[in-house]
Structure formats: C-alpha cells, structure tokens
C-alpha cells in the first residue's frame, strides 16, 4: 500500500484512465462526460473541460481525445443502445447514465438487449460494457435524482451489479468491471464522491462477487451496502464503545454476483443478522439477503434478522423528510439491539 490518499471521485477517474491507457478499446460516453471539449472557449486555450456533471471524468478528454471520450445528446436510449452495440462489436464502452433514476428511458437497451445478447447468440456475442450511474439520497435532489434502484438491476439475469463503498474498492472494482466480458452496472453514491481514502498507485483488480469484511466482530453481522457501510461502521464503533457489542460489518461490494459464502459464514459466527440498505425495501437486497440467510443458515440464527432500509416511498423533497428517509447510525444501533434480543 502506497499510503496515498485520494477521493472516491479521483479513484474512479484513475481506474478509467489506467484502463484507457492499457486497452485502446476502452471508451467513455455520456452526457457531458467531456463537457465542453471542442467548444470555442475551451479549445485552443488549454482550459479543462467540465468532465461530467460532478467532475468524475475530468481530464480524460484532454488525455484521450474526443474519439474516445464522447459527449452524447440527452438521449439515454440512443447512447446506451450505442454502447451495447459498440460492446457487441469489439469495444469496451463505459457509458454514463447520469442518475440511475433515468433508467426507464433506456431499459430496453439494458434489459432486453445488453443483458440478453450473449444468451440470444449462444455465447457467440458478448457485451463487455460498463454503465456507470449515480445513486443515493442526501443531495437535496428530490425524487427524480436520488433513488438507489440497484435492486432492480440485480434482479435481472445477464447483468452484474457493483456498489462500491470506499475509494479503494471503487478503483479496484471498476477495473474489474471494465475488464469483465458481461454488462456491469456500476453504482456510485454521489455523497461518497468527496470521501477520501487510501488508494494504491497502479492497477489492481478486485474480483466481482467477493465481499469484504470491513470490520470484524463476534456478536452480530451487519451487512451494509454502499454508503450504508460507513453508517454501519459508525454504529459499530458506538456500540463497541457504549455496550461492548462486537459488530461485524460485511460489505458485499457486488450484488450480482453476490458473495453468499462470506455472509453465511459471518452469520454462522455471530448468529445475528442486520441488513442495512438505502434502497427501498420491497423485493430488495435487504429482503434477498435475509431470505438467503434464513434459508441457508436458519439453525445458526439466534434472533430474528433485522432490516434497516429506506421506507417504501419516493425520496422526499423536504430536507427534513429526506434525512429521515435515509437509514441512520441510530436506526442501525436500534436494529442491532433488537437483533440481539435486547429490546
């Protein structure tokens, strides 16, 4: 480990940059991913383009040029469809669906084309595409820009889904996603972009389908996804300091494929389960993981599994309600206590 610190945003940028240097078939495309390249006020003056609505792809247009960093029209069905086709015909496109909430307009391209082509062509075609997209509430962006929705994609066979929680994981997982021969949806929580963490120099790949134990513990397993990993760690810290409760925090990192073994073996150790997920609760990862554990490890459970999720509603516009909507460390602490049979 180089001991080098960078933000979640920079880690993603670096993963893309390294892969674009390594493999000339890697391209990026999306609304404003270059953001101003070839415009008169930028061209010829050496000024940097915008580089995405939150600056994640900043600098890539400068290094790799307009042929590999493509600003697209505001037409998700068009450019996601183009990315599927590009992938099927030999490129490794990284398409940016700005907010996951927009998936409706390009769902045929993702679900009925991208996810299925490999199967429709008996394996003769493959779709090595990555769709990067922003998720999550907490940005005061209201219902149409704040959902998580990764459960929807995880439901669909043919897609892989990745939800990183740290800069280190984001870089290693995105490199794996780009190199993967199947379509991968890469969900970036917008509140995490400014979060700093240690990120080694150079290339490293974190295999898809490999969970990470973010904190070891004995008394209860908390499976947390994306931003919720940090709330779970905070809750674990407070529980350890307050009551001496030892919480194990498991970060699945990829939801499809899901690392069932790490979750199961953790529960077999702790005998208690709490799942924390910012996504809505019905047909969700939370229910899925609880079902997994109860079907495979019921005889190891020493209390009812608990779920801490957003409510079954659209992310509210009111900041007060939005804050209430998002699972909090307090709610996690309460759920851990319930799982432990202490309330």
């Amino acid at each position, binding site marked *: 480990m180089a001991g080098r610190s960078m933000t979640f945003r920079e880690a993603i940028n670096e993963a893309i940059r390294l892969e674009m240097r390594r493999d000339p078939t890697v391209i990026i495309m999306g609304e404003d991913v270059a953001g101003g390249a070839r415009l008169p006020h930028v061209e010829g003056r050496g000024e940097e383009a915008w580089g995405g609505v939150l600056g994640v792809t900043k600098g890539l247009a400068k290094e790799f040029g307009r042929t590999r960093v493509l600003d697209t029209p505001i037409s998700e069905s068009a450019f996601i469809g183009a990315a599927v086709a590009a992938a099927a015909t030999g490129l490794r496109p990284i398409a940016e669906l700005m907010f996951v909430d927009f998936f409706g307009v390009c769902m045929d391209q993702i679900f009925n084309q991208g996810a299925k082509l490999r199967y429709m062509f008996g394996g003769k075609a493959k779709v090595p595409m990555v769709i990067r997209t922003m998720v999550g509430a907490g940005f005061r962006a209201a219902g149409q820009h704040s959902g998580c929705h990764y459960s929807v994609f995880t439901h669909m066979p043919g897609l892989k889904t990745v939800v990183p929680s740290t800069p280190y994981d984001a870089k290693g997982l995105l490199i794996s996603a780009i190199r993967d021969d199947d379509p991968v949806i890469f969900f970036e929580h917008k509140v995490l972009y400014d979060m700093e963490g240690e990120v080694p120099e150079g290339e490293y790949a974190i295999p898809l389908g490999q969970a990470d134990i973010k904190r070891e513990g004995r008394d209860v397993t908390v499976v947390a996804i994306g931003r919720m990993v940090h709330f779970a760690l905070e809750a674990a810290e407070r529980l350890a300091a307050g009551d001496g409760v030892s919480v194990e925090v498991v970060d699945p990192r990829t939801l499809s494929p899901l690392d069932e073994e790490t979750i199961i073996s953790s529960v077999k150790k702790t*005998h208690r389960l709490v799942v924390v997920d910012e996504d809505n609760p019905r047909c969700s990862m939370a229910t899925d993981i609880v079902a997994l554990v109860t079907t495979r490890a019921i*005889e*190891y*459970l*020493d*209390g009812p599994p608990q779920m801490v999720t957003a409510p079954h509603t659209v992310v509210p516009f009111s900041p007060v309600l939005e804050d209430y909507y998002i699972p909090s460390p307090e709610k996690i602490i*309460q759920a851990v206590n*319930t799982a432990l*049979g202490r*309330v």
Partner: protein
Amino acid sequence: MAVQVVMPKLGMAMTEGEVVRWLREDGARVARDEPIVQVMSKKITYEVKAPQEGILRHAAPPKAKLAVGAVIGYILAPGEELPVIPAAPAAAPGPAPAERPPTPAGEVLATPMAKRLAREHGIDLGEVRGTGPGGRVQESDVLAYLEQRRMAPAAPEAPPAARTVPFAGMRRAIAERMTESLQAMAQVTITTEADVTGLVEFVDRLKAQVDISYTAVLVKAVAAALRRHPVLNATLVGDEIRLLDEINIGVGVALEDGLIVPVIRNADRLTLGEIDRELRRLAAAARAGTLTVDEVTGSTFTISNLGMYGIDAFTPIINPPEAAILGVGRIIEKPAVYRGQLAVRSLMTLSLTFDHRIVDGAPAAAFLQTLAGMLAQPALIFGEV
C-alpha cells in the same frame, strides 16, 4: 364461544405449572366441573375441572410447562372450531418485559440457534430459562444451562438406564428443598431410645373403644412437648429468631412417586380424636392428589415416621424454614432392665435433627427428654404433672 382452560395459580409463589396428564381425551364431550386435566405445581398435583359443558380440546401436551394463566385447553360448543391462537406481537422497542408472558400452548419459544444447540446436546428446552424478548430461549441461555450442568457435580458415567424418571415436578421440588435445607442450616441429629411400653398400653386400651393411630398420639405428644420447649417451634428470619405461637405439625406421607407433608394446624389445641381424623383425611387426600395449598403449607415442626419400614434411627432433614424435625423409628420389644429386673419392654428410637444456628444441643436434648417421658407415660401428654 370457546372457553379457555388455563394453568391455575395454586399458591402465591407459583409462576408456572406442568401438565401431568389429560384425564379426558381431545375431542371428548365433558360436563361442567368434570375433572379434565391433572396439573402440577412444585408443591402439589391438582385436577382442573371443566369450566363449562362442551367439547374438550387440548392445547398443551403432557409434560408441557406453562406460565400461570397460559391456555392449556378449550371447551368448545358442538361444531365450533378451535380459535386461532394469535401470534405473539412483535417485540416493540422499550424496556424488556419483567415477567415471562405465557408462551403458546405447549411450545417453548426458542431461537433456531438455541433449538439446534439443545438438540445437539440432548437438552429439553423446557428446562432452559429464556431471557430473550418474551421469554424466548436464546443461544446464551442454552450455553448458560450447559455451563451450569457442567459445573454441577459430575455424575459418574452412568450405565444405560432401563427406564428414566423425569427429574421434574415433585421430585425436583423435594430435591431443591432438601438441598437448600442442608446448605442453609447447621443440622445436628441426636437420638434416644425411649421406653414406650406405656404408650403401647395406652394405645391398646384406646383401641378397645376407638381406633387411634400411633401417629396421632405422636403428633399430640410432640405438640405438647413443643409448648414446653418453644425454641424448637421457631424459625430464623433475617436477624431474628421467631418463636412461633401456632404449633402446626407437618406429617410426612409417602406417595408412590414422592413425598408430601400435610399439616395438622394448631395440633396442641386439638383432641386426640380430632388429630386422628384429620390425619386420616389428609393422608387420603395426599394419596388422591387432592390436597389444597393450605393443607401443605405453614407447618412449624415436622414428624417423619419410618417405623413401619423397620427403621430405628436416621437423620431426617429439616423441612425449611422450620427449626427441627423428629424422626420416629419402629416400636420393638426388647429385653431391657426395668426397675432392676430384666424385662421385655417396648422401645422406640427417636431421632431429632435441629438447626444448631437456632438452638443448642442441651435445650434440644431437653425437648427430646420431655417427649420420651410423655411417650413412656402418656398421661403427661395431657397435662402438667
């Protein structure tokens, strides 16, 4: 409308009871007040009667241990369906309930982990106290139980049992009380051989007219002796020794599968005939399992008689919270020196166990001497001479 049959509260201290056996089968038509199920507290066995006429439905199997007030069965109208037992409400956030609420009929509430551990260790979950929400047995409870069992004096490797008897109910109650007694008190046993030829003659004379048992005379004699030696009719509470006003004599009655101690209240104020009749009534009730709580509580001194089994002396264990217990041996004719002559006399060994915390050897011996004197000359029982 279905009427619930619940686990009765058979005494102030009772918190749970055990279903011993159903006297009427599931689905039987029963009459109002007909005995339908036998239940057991730590002290007594009791027959629960049908609260109304109807069809009996069982809701708890034999051996089920249930909290007082828990439903053990229903009386239904003909054609009526069993009510659906509502699931326990989910534990709401808040302070843990102090009292264990009734568990669903016959079922031990336990987590899957606890059930698996219990199965792996061959533990009856009914024996494990649940500390989880709603009294749910959790892994930690089973582990604590195992630890407790491990710490208990290790039983030598037992050869395979031909049959097993449940260590529960009355058996367990006796075990707990006897162990508690020996652990809490400083017990000393003294014995004396009493010449009871006078007693034998007295009873023989009475029997010509009325059938009076030796036990009745013993109860009367002990009560009279206690009046003169009140320190043996005492109990230790905190930092006080309380000399008790009432003299209530407990008399051990052996049962097929245990022992029960019905009580003769105010034995010093009853006539011999009253004592005898009360003894017969209580013994019959003890064997029929119909003793009430009041009839088995409140004794201040206990008599244990093993004479009918050919025993002379033994070391009876005090029935807490009493201060002493009298062990009565057999009456046997022996050659003895009587007034300077070798003669055939009726002798009986009396064994007195007393709590040395409350009373010392000399006053305990004085009591035994008084008693032996009364049995030698029964007239002494009935008044100061």
